[in-house]
């Protein structure tokens, strides 16, 4: 009895304290994609120390993020798959990219080290289409004359859960292979012609490490942290490029954001000699017409702070920050598109 009354008093005390702190500033809430969660959390922590504004971000998945922002239960939604301009218009939303991540094919071929295997987009698509089924296929050999490729079956490993990573990867395959585009297409989960499915990046990595002769795809940070052997890819200009922060940033830089309404731009097969061909930005969704302009202003201030002060933090976590030129475009779109109830612009910087 004593214990319970004590804990009851304690809980009142705690409740009082939290109420007191939240009274100082507006808290902002967001929900959605899991991929950018680490960087949003890191930004939020530093931002809170600096301004006292707290960000409550629930990484429930892009699908959930879109649902929650449509129902207006959060101040912003987050999605790895951008909404089309039409879908944005219909829901009365705007979207903007925050950070860029790369998707890399990882392999498990005995005797082949990281970066040694070279593949073109078409070859990669044919492997995932089950048209190339052995590692010593002449098409792979012709790109890798010096590699001793084994006569073993290729096992494709893909994501079993819906994921922005899958969307970016499938989007790339449909850009480089007509057959992939018509047969499979691109979405957060697709009907895979072949292979085994792992749950999450860690699931794909675990399968790829267990199964000899396998090829899968994971987020770059994941491949880097776990030292998974990666593939060198041929980009749209015919150059062979290794995956790293520079080659992802090159994709973000050469992308034509200014001519993409609603920033609907997937950074796959982008131009540029140094560009890694499979990258993608992650996006924030907000309502154009804001019922709570003070919350929206706080959200914008937070991301503006992230763009200007968060680059190093992003790089530390293997995300590519948005280039300055793109940030200017984004903030210009805030100014013209985000309005309070009275029609006044929320962002005026």
């Amino acid at each position: 009895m004593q214990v319970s009354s004590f804990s009851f008093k304690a809980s009142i005390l705690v409740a009082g304290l939290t109420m007191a702190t939240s009274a100082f500033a507006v808290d902002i809430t967001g929900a959605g994609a899991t991929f950018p969660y680490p960087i949003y959390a890191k930004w939020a922590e530093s931002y809170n120390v600096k301004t006292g504004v707290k960000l409550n971000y629930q990484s429930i998945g892009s699908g959930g993020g879109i649902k929650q922002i449509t129902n207006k239960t959060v101040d912003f939604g987050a999605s790895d798959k951008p909404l089309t301009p039409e879908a944005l218009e219909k829901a009365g939303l705007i979207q903007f990219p925050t950070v860029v991540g790369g998707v890399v094919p990882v392999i498990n071929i005995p005797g082949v080290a990281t970066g040694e295997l070279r593949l073109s987009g078409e070859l990669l698509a044919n492997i995932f289409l089950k048209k190339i089924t052995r590692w010593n296929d002449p098409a792979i050999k012709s790109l890798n004359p010096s590699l001793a490729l084994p006569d073993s079956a290729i096992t494709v490993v893909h994501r079993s859960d819906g994921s922005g990573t899958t969307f970016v990867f499938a989007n790339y395959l449909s850009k480089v292979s007509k057959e992939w585009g018509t047969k499979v297409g691109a979405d957060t989960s697709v009907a895979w012609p072949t292979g085994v499915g792992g749950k999450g990046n860690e699931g794909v990595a675990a399968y790829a490490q267990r199964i000899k002769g396998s090829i899968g795809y994971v987020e770059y940070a994941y491949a880097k942290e776990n030292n998974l052997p990666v593939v060198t890819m041929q980009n749209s200009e015919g150059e062979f490029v290794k995956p790293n922060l520079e080659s992802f940033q090159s994709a973000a830089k050469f992308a034509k954001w200014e001519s993409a309404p609603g920033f609907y731009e997937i950074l796959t097969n982008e131009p540029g000699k140094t560009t890694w061909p499979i990258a993608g930005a992650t996006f924030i969704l907000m309502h154009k017409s804001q019922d709570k302009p003070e919350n929206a202003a706080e959200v914008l201030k937070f991301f503006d702070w992230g763009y200007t002060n968060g680059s190093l933090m992003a790089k530390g976590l293997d995300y590519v920050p948005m280039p300055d030129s793109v940030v200017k475009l984004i903030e210009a779109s805030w100014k013209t598109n985000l309005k309070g109830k009275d029609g006044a612009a929320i962002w005026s910087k």
Partner: protein
Amino acid sequence: MSSLNSEVEIKNAGGEAVLSPALPLNQQSKTREVKSMSSTTQNKNIGARLDKLFHYTTMFFAFLVFILLFGIIVTLFMGSLPALKTFGPAFFTSSAWNPVDIQFGGLVPIYGTFITALIAMLIGIPVSFGIAIFITELSPVWLKRPIGIAIELLAGIPSIIYGMWGLFVFAPFFADHVQPWINDNLGELPLIGVVFQGPPMGIGMLTAGFILAIMVIPFTSSVMRDVFEIVPTMLKESAYGLGSTTWEVVWNVVLPYTKTGVVGGIMLGLGRALGETMAVTFVIGNAHELSASLMMPGNTISSALANEFTEAVGDVYTSSLITLGLTLFVITFIVLALAKLLLIRLAMREGKNT
């Protein structure tokens, strides 16, 4: 009974523990009963009312089960309507699963659910039976407790641990040592050979079935052990006295005496095998592909739900997953109903024989 109770309660009033929320009031009334005999009738009224209150409270709790069940069925049904409207009954016979074209069918996960559960039961039932028989009939006394405790510990391990163990330890072992053997020896068999042919990845429906069997064994065997233990020693000793072997005692005395409990234990295991999620998700390979080979990756209803629900975008996709959930619910219901029917028939036959 009631006077005995009141004595006990009065004694308790001096102590520290309060046994149930209804008790303090009860105590008050009972203490008063002792103090003044004149107000007995009034107190009886209060006691009767409290009894009634207690009756309705417990009834409400019991009916809560119905309310919950009904709520879940209605929610699942409402949620599955969009998919059922779009695809009709063909949903259950189609093996398509294409989120891009919004074409969904439940055949692959339903098939996978049945096959993995079947493998689990084929392995799990004989092993559980053996464990239970050994503990109750054959084991030296000093070994009974350690085995019993070990089984209970196995039952307490979270399923995700089984999944991780399955993926990191069991699957590689299976791929290197068991699957090549199965491929070479069973894969050559006519007709059923195709079931055992496939790349030795260590991941697939057979592995999932094995892991499920390991997860089912603690449940089934501990229920079996418990029911075997209630067989009166006199019956068994009599059979032994007549010169029966252990096998004969088990088959002719223990099993007939405990068949209800044994079937119950098997059903408990089957229930777990059908609904198990995380462990299966780790090792089954999660591919929406229908294949005759047990070595190939497949999918079960619960692992499809675990994998895809969070990122399912669009009404039809979500609704298709909910329809799968409803299907699992119905399958479990049918299995339970069949088990009850089986038990009733067993009981009826018993009546005829005697």
